[in-house]
């Protein structure tokens, strides 16, 4: 199969959809002739011009509020934040308006908005360019939150986002954006529904649940542990909201042990939610206390030595898996 980067994969989905759906437009800083800070819209301005590839001033609250109004009146806006950190200036528009609009209108209005941005810690981007916040968004009713771990899934999930009538946060880890992975030919119209996790590796001793960059690191750890005789099942959540608990619980039934690996903060996070649901619905399947491994609960430091200390490393993940198996 051919190999594409994340960016090329989602750009293909966007290109194909913009050609058939004239209501789609993209807004953001540098997404016009420049093609996006991360190349998300490269080549599209030449095709569709400035009204559909709309460069904005640095006015996040302004253009997110605009996107809300546009979505209420028949357009499909995609807001491209480059770094997700910049979304925070517009959170009032998202939490109070975009997320609640369908409810407030008793379902008579739809809210087909995609809010996309790059997330994650790495390359000394420091504390204003390293955030993820997916559990924050997942906490709010009305939002879909997507965190793909490979280009194949990114394309399939982005296709679903492009047809969704709900607001979608589409969040890609910037440290894996440039990585290539197999993606079917353009003629293959596969989509991946929201709320369907992927069993990325089959195993029997322990279930590791993860997403994004950490999913890839967990797969590497699983490979190493296979050499130590530990058989790890790895589940890629792919979407944080909705959360696919049936897939997690089915795996737990088989392994009896579970570890959630997440780059972001532990308190009130993905691990907290998954483990709470495990306790509620899979308690009898547990052979050991459920565990989680998270990045440090801190703003993100700059220096490489400090930065490395706040993200779960390959070694830390491998050790956490061993600990759950031994518990």
């Amino acid at each position, binding site marked *: 199969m051919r190999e594409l980067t994340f960016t090329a994969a989602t750009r293909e989905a966007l290109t194909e959809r913009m050609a058939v759906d004239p209501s789609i437009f993209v807004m953001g*800083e*540098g997404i016009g*002739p*420049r093609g996006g*800070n991360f190349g998300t819209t490269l080549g599209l301005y030449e095709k569709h011009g400035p009204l559909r590839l709309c*460069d*904005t*001033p*640095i*006015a*996040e*609250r*302004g253009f997110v509020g605009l996107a809300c109004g546009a979505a209420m009146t028949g357009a499909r806006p995609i807001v491209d934040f480059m770094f997700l*950190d*910049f979304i*925070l*200036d517009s959170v009032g528009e998202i939490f109070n308006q975009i997320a609640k609009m369908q409810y407030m209108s008793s379902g008579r209005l739809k809210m087909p908005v995609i809010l996309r941005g790059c997330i994650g810690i790495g*390359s*000394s*981007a*420091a*504390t*204003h*360019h390293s955030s993820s916040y997916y559990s924050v968004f997942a906490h709010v009713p009305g939002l879909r939150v997507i965190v793909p771990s490979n280009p194949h899934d990114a394309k399939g999930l982005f296709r679903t986002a492009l047809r969704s009538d709900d607001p979608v946060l589409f969040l890609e880890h910037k440290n894996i954006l440039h990585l290539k992975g197999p993606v079917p030919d353009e003629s293959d119209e596969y989509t991946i529904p929201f709320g369907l996790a992927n069993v990325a590796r089959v195993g029997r001793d322990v279930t590791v649940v993860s997403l994004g960059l950490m999913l890839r690191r967990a797969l590497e750890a699983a490979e190493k542990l296979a050499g130590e005789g530990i058989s790890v099942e790895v589940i890629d959540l792919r979407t944080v909201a909705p959360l696919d608990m049936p897939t997690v619980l089915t795996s737990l039934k088989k392994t009896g042990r579970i570890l959630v690996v997440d780059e972001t903060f532990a308190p009130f996070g993905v691990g907290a939610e998954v483990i709470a649901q495990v306790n509620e619905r899979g308690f009898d399947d547990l052979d050991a206390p459920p565990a989680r491994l998270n990045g*440090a*609960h*801190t*703003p993100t*430091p*700059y*220096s*490489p*030595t*400090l*930065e*490395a*200390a*706040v993200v779960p490393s390959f070694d830390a993940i491998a050790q956490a898996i061993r600990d759950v198996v031994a518990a």
Partner: protein
Amino acid sequence: MQVIRQTEEALARSHQAGLIHGACHTYVGEEAIAAGVCAHLTHDDALFSTHRGHGHALAKGVPPRELIAELFGRVTGCSRGRGGSMHLFSPEVGMMGTSGIVGPCILQATGAGYTFKLLGKPHVGVAFFGDGASNNGAFHEGLNLAAIYQLPTIFICENNQFATEIAITYATRNADIWTKAASFGMPGVCVDGNDSVAVWQAAGEAIARARSGGGPTLIECKTYRTRAHAEGMRDGGYRSAEDVEKWKARDPIKMLAARMPQEQAEFAAIEADVKALVEEAVAFAKASPYPDGITATEHIYA
């Protein structure tokens, strides 16, 4: 201006050499603004800056060695290695931070003005920000707040004509940013941002007025950055090489030197002194240790 220029050039070389771990937005071509404004400030005045803040930090009194060490990620940096280029802090000298987010400095400088008014102090809050920030809500809300409370806050808009690759003439129908002051009922001034004496004069008047209870001022400095938006980024497609050359010819350091032809020897001596200072600073930064990983979670709370 020499300290800023030579430090920036050393940083650009260091970036190419892989010594700078994160982003690096240089201030080359815009030195007259920080130098002209900060000449009127003491360490008690509070300066709030942007992502392009090396010049502001240096002009406010952060030594080049602490700035360079910070970008090298060393524990001797002004933010102890936790911040890098976009999180430079040195409250000891009134350098209240650069920022990776465009806009907040405008509001925070307004807050500093509020403190000084509240406590009856003769200090000023100063915000430096780009043309791009002037289209952000923070600009409009901050200037309005400073005006209605008549705060001792100075707003310095460094209009280098682009926000990354977006031209200011695209991002607003009124690219004379200084004229926007009138809609908040505050004085607005426009100066040649490459003319250090003009900046110094305009800032001096505004700061004196603010210190004596006369309220805020917006000063737009028309300027240009002569390097790419950030080191390692492309610098074509959105502006012409001729424009860059035209502005390079308006080098603020050369423009000042041209005003004082009889002082050439002194200019040369300053340049040589600064060269030694910056070389020493780079050596210091290179020799400094990285912070210990276990300190990563210190200082989250008081």
